[in-house]
């Protein structure tokens, strides 16, 4: 089944290289295009977005109209989202101002109001600072380590070879495995006396505890790297497809060796998709609850007490709901900067790329 899908359509990610090359924005999808195309195409051109800004102001894109707007169609989705998103978020903010624990929980609306005391207590506590350090350093490490792996994988599978479809399918597996399965499996692999320790022993790494103590941090880094490198791979692959074949030909004519071509022709083109991948990867890692939770269990070892796990323990083990809500809001502040950059970089508006496309003609 896998072979069928991969074999018949040899290029699962990289369809239409010609179209992609001619239309780097990926905006020219016909009827047969897929969500995959649109997203991959749209996401891979961050650098192009600012150029489009002035154009968007003056000219609305084709297909977006102000006439006869059936705004009522927003009602079902809008109402549902208000109920399940806006209300909980507002309540979360309110809770973070309350002295809410298991004693005041039953009558939470009349719990004592503390103002920003929870926020202060959270920053002053060593736990939160420790968790922030752990979360950020593990997220950055994983992001940095997955970068060369993902890029190398994309470079190696860009050209057709026998079995490439299958290889590409296999490369997706670690990423699509549910995190709870990945965590369960690696928990068994890394346990004392498990196959991981045995294998590492053959490679000269002394046996030790991977699920407890200082090495647990590295266990988390290794497992999350294993699970997340295909993200960079996918984005790089999408970026490679947008490189015009004439660029390759020009490089070949100039007699550039593979390294020179890579360094001066290919890599400069990949800056956009790669930096996008780094951003998403960092955001994923910081927010990842499932993997650390399943891999180490709670209470988790001190060295891997990442932010989501800390807020979870603080609320559902220690029942300090108010404090935990404040911690969750702090973690929101932690991702605010990368998130803001991400939102600036991603193509949001249909109008902008339409006008941008016209501007290029």
């Amino acid at each position, binding site marked *: 089944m896998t072979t069928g899908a991969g074999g018949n359509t040899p290029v699962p990610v990289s369809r239409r290289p010609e179209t992609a090359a001619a239309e780097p924005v990926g905006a020219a999808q016909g009827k047969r295009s897929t969500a995959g195309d649109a997203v991959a195409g749209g996401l891979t051109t961050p650098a192009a977005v600012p150029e489009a800004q002035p154009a968007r102001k003056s000219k609305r894109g084709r297909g977006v109209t102000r006439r006869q707007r*059936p705004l009522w169609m927003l009602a079902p989705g809008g109402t549902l989202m208000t109920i399940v998103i806006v209300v909980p978020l507002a309540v979360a903010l309110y809770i973070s101002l309350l002295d809410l624990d298991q004693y005041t929980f039953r009558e939470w609306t009349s719990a004592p109001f503390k103002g920003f005391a929870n926020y202060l207590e959270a920053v002053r506590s060593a736990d939160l600072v420790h968790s922030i350090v752990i979360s950020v350093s593990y997220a950055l490490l994983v992001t940095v380590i997955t970068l060369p792996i993902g890029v190398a994988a994309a470079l190696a599978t860009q050209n057709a070879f026998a079995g490439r479809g299958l290889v590409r399918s296999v490369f997706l597996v670690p990423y699509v495995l549910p995190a709870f399965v990945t965590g369960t499996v690696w928990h068994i692999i890394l346990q004392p006396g498990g196959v991981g320790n045995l294998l590492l022993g053959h490679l000269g790494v002394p046996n030790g505890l991977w699920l407890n103590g200082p090495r647990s941090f590295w266990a988390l880094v290794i497992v999350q790297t294993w699970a997340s490198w295909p993200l960079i791979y996918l984005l790089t692959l999408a970026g490679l497809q947008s490189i015009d074949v004439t660029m390759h030909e020009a490089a070949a004519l100039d007699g550039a060796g593979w390294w020179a071509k890579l360094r001066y022709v290919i890599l400069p083109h990949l800056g956009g998709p790669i930096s996008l991948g780094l951003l998403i990867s960092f955001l994923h890692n910081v927010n990842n609850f499932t993997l650390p939770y399943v891999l180490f269990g709670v209470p988790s070892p001190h060295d891997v007490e990442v932010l989501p796990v800390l807020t979870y323990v603080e609320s559902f083990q220690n029942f300090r709901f108010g404090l935990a809500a404040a911690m969750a809001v702090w973690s929101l502040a932690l991702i605010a900067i990368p998130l803001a950059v991400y939102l600036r970089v991603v193509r949001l508006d249909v109008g902008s790329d339409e006008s941008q496309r016209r501007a290029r003609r």
Partner: protein
Amino acid sequence: MKTRSATVTRLLPRPLQITVVVLLLVVVLGPVSYVFFASVNSDLSVAAGDFLPHRLDFGNYARIWSTVDLSTGLMNSLIVAGTVAVVCALVSVGTGYVLVRFAFTGRVSILRALLALQSIPGTLILLPVFVLFASVANVLSVQIIGTRWALFITYLTFALPFSTWVMVTYLRGLPAELDEAARIDGASSFRILRSIVLPLSWPGLVVSAIFAFLLGWNDVLFASVLTNPQTRTAAVALTVFGVTQEGGAIPPYGQLMAAALVCAAPVVVLYLAFQRYLVGGLTTGGVK
């Protein structure tokens, strides 16, 4: 022509290319194949760190159904994630259509919010939801925590924005001329949505449904707090399975691995079957 362009566009020298591919295949397939080997191995052998089983024992796949209530878990996951998928897909068409085709104040902010919501820490939603559900139980004596409804509602929080975003990216690709023509012919907006947009957007619908489904299927955070043993999902059943058995002499590792494979199989099959449609959504980041 084809061969020429293949040599011209080659990025890595052949030996290096082969090395990278083989290395990564080993790194990926090593742990994956180990899961399978361990699932047909004896617990003692897994505990001893054997990679290959001494003799194949497929009995673990029969035993998991009685040791832990995996079938209830799978059923709950299927019901909750399935409902979320259907609701999200249906709701997202209308929202996505308006967002793609019509200009109105706040449109870009909504688009931005759809993406931003993917990065909200789950605990920030879980806390208020837990408190709200508990107070509904107090005030109206309607117990929500522990029911499938609790999961359904909370999964919508993350699945709705993501499905809508997927629909937006899909509908962007549809030519606007089609519904402009219908509009000129005097069709109402609802009519256009029903007879023109909907029939054309089934691939987008499928993708947005699959992603909504996977959000539910893969979740541990919400399910671990909001369910009880009768309503727990496969994900929680698996984690509980791993923990509770550790009182015994040797935990049933083989069964644990078999159960992990059973939980992962539907997801991996879905991805590989629909991979050309799903890859774009993967890189947007809601699911992981």
